């Protein structure tokens, strides 16, 4: 039997639940080919493409995203994966679902870091829905961004301030942040793509262009409302993975509050090219959970080149990358955590056959 208070709370919750389901009205259309989809969004400044919807629909329910038009791209023929001619790598269609990409035999064998990153994210249900293109466009899970009840968020409402800098900032950035925004990018997949030198292929009204993964996402600077360099009338059509033979020796390490189904506090995507004496010929390393974009760890890579693959080398490299890190009241632990995660991830990769 419920107490009066419990019943009242329950009834209020019911109303709250109802209120949550309403979104601003929008027009809906189904695109049948890429050019039509691009043409359709071009005439609608507040239009958005709808893929898996796992982030966009959620943000629309929260009132953070309020598109006037949704162009459903789920039927576009962009869900395939193909080898690029001349052994140049692989092309992943933007509408490929995260689960299909993660379980693809060639991805598992040639780019295990990407498969592991995908499988470490979200849940099986969400991975069945989420697309590669949509994953690139995930928005931050910063509490102050995600809940419009918080008045200050420069990303949601430019000029309103940042609730996180003086607030609860445990999940926030330690690298590349600005006075305007200390949000982090939440994707795991993107961290692996950054390490793998992936290229994002997009189509707009003027045709196609390529955006290197490391230039796709932005640091917040004075325009934290812009997550990426994609234009509003451009559609992501594919992601190219250049051939990287040594990526067979790669790994994704994700550190989080729960064993599963949680965003990264810190994550590391790492690949090592080793000679027979375990000397590092080349390294590819990117960090997640530390910055407004997947953080390509160039200082680590530079520090590792030509050195012996051992824990001491890894620690020196990690120190170099995090030297410029800045922590806040609740997230300073991430600086040491990131260093240790880099060492552990690289040690795992070095130990791989």
């Amino acid at each position, binding site marked *: 039997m419920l107490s009066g208070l419990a*019943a009242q709370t329950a*009834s209020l919750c019911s109303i709250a639940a109802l209120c949550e389901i309403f979104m601003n009205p929008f027009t809906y259309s189904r695109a049948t080919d890429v050019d039509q989809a691009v043409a359709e969004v071009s005439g609608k400044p507040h239009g958005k493409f709808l893929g898996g919807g796992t982030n966009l629909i959620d943000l629309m329910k929260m009132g953070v995203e309020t598109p006037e038009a949704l162009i459903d791209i789920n039927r576009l023929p962009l869900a395939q994966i193909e080898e690029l001619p001349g052994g140049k790598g692989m092309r992943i269609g933007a509408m490929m679902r995260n689960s299909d990409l993660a379980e693809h035999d060639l991805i598992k064998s040639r780019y295990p870091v990407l498969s592991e990153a995908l499988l470490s994210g979200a849940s099986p249900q969400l991975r069945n*829905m989420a697309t590669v293109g949509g994953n690139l466009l995930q928005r931050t899970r910063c509490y102050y961004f995600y809940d419009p009840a918080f008045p200050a968020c420069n990303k949601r409402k430019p000029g309103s301030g940042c609730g996180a800098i003086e607030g609860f900032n445990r999940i926030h950035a330690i690298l590349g942040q600005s006075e305007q925004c200390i949000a982090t990018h939440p994707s795991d997949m993107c961290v692996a793509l950054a390490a793998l030198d992936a290229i994002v292929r997009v189509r707009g009204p003027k045709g196609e262009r390529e955006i290197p993964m490391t230039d796709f996402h932005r640091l917040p600077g004075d325009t934290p409302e812009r997550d990426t360099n994609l234009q509003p009338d451009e559609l992501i059509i594919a992601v190219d993975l250049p051939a990287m033979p040594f990526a067979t020796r790669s790994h994704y390490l994700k550190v989080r509050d729960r064993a599963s189904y949680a965003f990264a506090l810190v994550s590391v995507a790492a690949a090592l090219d080793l000679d027979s004496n375990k000397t590092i010929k080349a390294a590819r390393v990117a960090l997640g959970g530390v910055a407004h974009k997947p953080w390509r760890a160039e200082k680590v890579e530079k520090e590792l080149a030509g050195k012996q693959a051992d824990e001491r080398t890894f620690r020196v490299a990690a120190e170099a990358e995090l030297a410029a890190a800045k922590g806040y009241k609740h997230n300073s632990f991430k600086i040491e955590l990131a260093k240790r995660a880099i060492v552990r991830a690289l040690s795992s990769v070095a130990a791989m056959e």
Partner: protein
Amino acid sequence: MASESDVPFDSEADGLSELSILGYPETRRKFIKQVAGTSAAIAIGPNLLSAASLDQAGATSAGDAASDSVKVNLKINGKGYALDVDPRVTLLDALREQLHLTGSKKGCDHGQCGACTVLVNGRRINSCLSLAVTHEGDEITTIEGLANGDELHPMQSAFIEHDGFQCGYCTPGQICSAVACVKEGHANSDDEIREWMSGNICRCGAYPNILAAIKEARSKTA
């Protein structure tokens, strides 16, 4: 599994006086629909709710132009449905509010709990984060569609056998998810089952029994 287990209120309970003030003490679901017929619906916009609710909301005005409704054909549990839905309606709300298939549950409504899990073309998804209009022509299986007549699906039987629930609210989602988990080949060890069932939260903590149920059903459904 498809019973009215989402009616947590005993209508005779003393604590329902707050609901009684509104004059609708029957059930939570009815309560929600009735609220839609009151002033709350002005803010909500009437087209989100089922035809039954629409009647009740008929006296209200939406204030802004609601999204135009869109026709969508769904095949649910083997039966074809032609629906007219507001594009804002999620698959979960279409199932529950328009088709009265209330087995699929609304837990968090944000893709975090898995109570709304259904199978679309054989794959498990969170129906709360998927707009109904995007499922034109899709084959959808809900908890109501798993049994073969009176014969329960082996996963349903195993959940009963192993007490894979306490309150039962997460159970339809757990079972749909578990059926897919086995079919995907992700139920080969205890740890693998735990990882691949992590998208379904059970607040009663029936996890050990859910695990046992899946292990038993695995051999019967594989």
